[in-house]
């Protein structure tokens, strides 16, 4: 088993929490993991990504080669498209459809939507609306992870357990909210 994942978003959107949940699930499974993160300057509202590789065999490079990613998980639609050259032929894009506009020259939003919709293997989630509907705007990253669960080849229950471990210290309420978000995310792409 080997899954190469690119997590993408804007600094502050919580992609590293997604990476942490997947990473812990993989650790519990005794898999090999490499997870390259972006810390530093770009975290101030710039584009951020994490290359997450999990495999039953040893992994050489911390970075995913071009054309190698099995899935791109993005908190923002333009950020999903940024990593297209890294996507494999049959790879999936699972992304929020809500643009994060913090630059004056943000491209035509409709063009971004059309490009995403015209591709095969794309799941778009209106995370903004979902967060509001279920009153959990802070857990939308877990909704996105839930939607991506099937593409990860890790098992949904493994991700749930991982949330329990990682968020455990923050109290039962936070754990339950995040597990609910994960479940909602999965249901909405079923």
């Amino acid at each position: 088993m080997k899954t190469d994942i690119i997590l993408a978003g804007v600094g502050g959107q919580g992609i590293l929490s997604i990476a942490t949940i997947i990473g812990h699930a993989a650790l519990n499974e005794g898999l090999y993991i490499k997870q390259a993160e972006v810390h530093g300057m770009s975290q101030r509202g710039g584009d951020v990504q994490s290359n997450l590789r999990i495999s039953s065999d040893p992994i050489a490079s911390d970075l995913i080669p071009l054309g190698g990613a099995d899935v791109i998980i993005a908190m923002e639609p333009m950020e999903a498209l940024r990593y297209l050259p890294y996507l494999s032929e049959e790879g999936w894009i699972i992304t929020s459809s809500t643009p994060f506009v913090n630059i004056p020259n943000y491209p035509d939003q409709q063009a971004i939507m059309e490009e995403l919709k015209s591709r095969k293997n794309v799941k778009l989630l209106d995370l903004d609306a979902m967060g509001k509907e279920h009153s959990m705007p802070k857990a939308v990253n877990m909704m996105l992870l839930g939607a991506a669960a099937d593409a990860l080849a890790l098992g949904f229950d493994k991700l749930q357990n991982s949330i329990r471990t990682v968020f455990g210290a923050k109290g039962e309420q936070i754990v339950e909210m995040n597990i609910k978000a994960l479940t909602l995310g999965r249901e909405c792409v079923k």
Partner: protein
Amino acid sequence: MAKKLLLGDQAIAQGALDAGLSGVYAYPGTPSTEITEYIQESPQGRGGEVHCRWCTNEKTAMETALGMSYAGKRALVCMKHVGMNVAADPFLNSAITGVNGGVVVLVADDPSMHSSQNEQDTRFYGKFAMIPVLEPSNQQEAYDMMSFAYELSEKIGEPVLMRVVTRMAHSRAVVETGEPKAQNELNAPERSQNWVLLPAIARRRYAALVEQQKEFDALSESSPFNVYTEGENHDMGVIACGIGYNYYMENYPQGSPYPVLKVSQYPLPKEIIRKMASECKSLLIVEDGQPFVEEQVRGVLPVECEIKGRLSGELPRMGELTPDNVKAALGMGSSQVFAASQNVVPRPPALCQGCGHRSVYEALNRIVAECEGARVFGDIGCYTLGALPPYKSINSCVDMGASITMAKGASDAGVFPAIAVIGDSTFTHSGMTGLLDAVNCNAPITVIISDNLTTAMTGGQDSAGTNKFEAICQGLGVDKEHLHVVNPLPQNMEEITRIMREEINYRGLSVIIPRRECIQTLSRKAKAKKK
């Protein structure tokens, strides 16, 4: 023994703790910051068994570590690559004094300049100081190397330099940890004369260091971290350094067809390389950073074996290695399937909404627009983002502290008004000495110390001068009449611009300290309180 998912930086920190560390001395800097933070959060750090408070700059860090070593204990110094320029004086001289307790100097390089102003390669400093350099290829090795490095340092009586790069520092992998060792006992150096670098002693010490080079060479030849693997195809041999080895191996999941030497300890293991050169038609050098190994292997005289790497153009001359550019150097085609999207534009970082630096630049831009010929010399920190639109306020950013000194130099040359903008942490790091120069000449410059009560750019570490800035400035001789503190809030714009206008037009030295807490640390504190 435990298995943990750790960043390269955290693996280094855990490795140092398990090697019996007594103190970590560091100034924050991407990508090295997480090492010290991990130690601060560890039981040993929280319990006060390991000294781990941030230092004012890299030079004070290096010297303090040397003091701890003098007393027989193990110390770690951490910094980003440009920090080494600041620490260079004690670093190079520590190779002359030698060490008592083990010293590891950990420097994190940033090829591709993800968060830096250059991509200098720290391995040159190791060669310069003539001491062994370690360069781990993965997180487990980084952990294992720490114990090895401390033993090596105490065995040879010299500091050991360890070099990592961003992708090693900021990438996680599963690390198996070992048994922790006890700290060293207090124990004075055997020959304390060695630490007095008067010329006569320094000459003797330097001669001893030169003599030791053979030993360091031999240690590299036999190092468990320098691994030679035979390959069938001798058209080429590969020398892959640090994480360059991973990018190379990524392209050969079934194993390397060529002989390959993984280099993780320097000086270069010359004997193995000579043997490879005699057996292979060409050598490809895969190293992240500058062509440090390639230059040494190539020399200036013709060789029979063709040398390929960054200098010959097989690999890009600058920027970090990737599995893809290494693949191209191996003559394989790209596996890219999809072209880049036309609907993507760069998203540069920006000052946060609500950040106090924003109000500072807003006010400053108003005054600068009124003064023909005004020049603003910036410095390093979040506020450097004031160089980008919409503010475009600063005309320079070179190295920590250079705002004040460059403003003075420009003013000496006749620029008026010359304005310096510097952050609170940068000011104590390297700005105070420059301010004293300006005070001594009553240079007609205005220094704006934009104080957000933290070291924000690197994630909000404590700032050494918090609550001391007025006292420091007055102590250095700044005239009280021309020293102001303001609160950079949009509603205070009137007052701030008035003070700035007066002081910027004043023909003498003035200091303005806009002070408001960073909104990131503020909201983090609020969250912590809720819990």
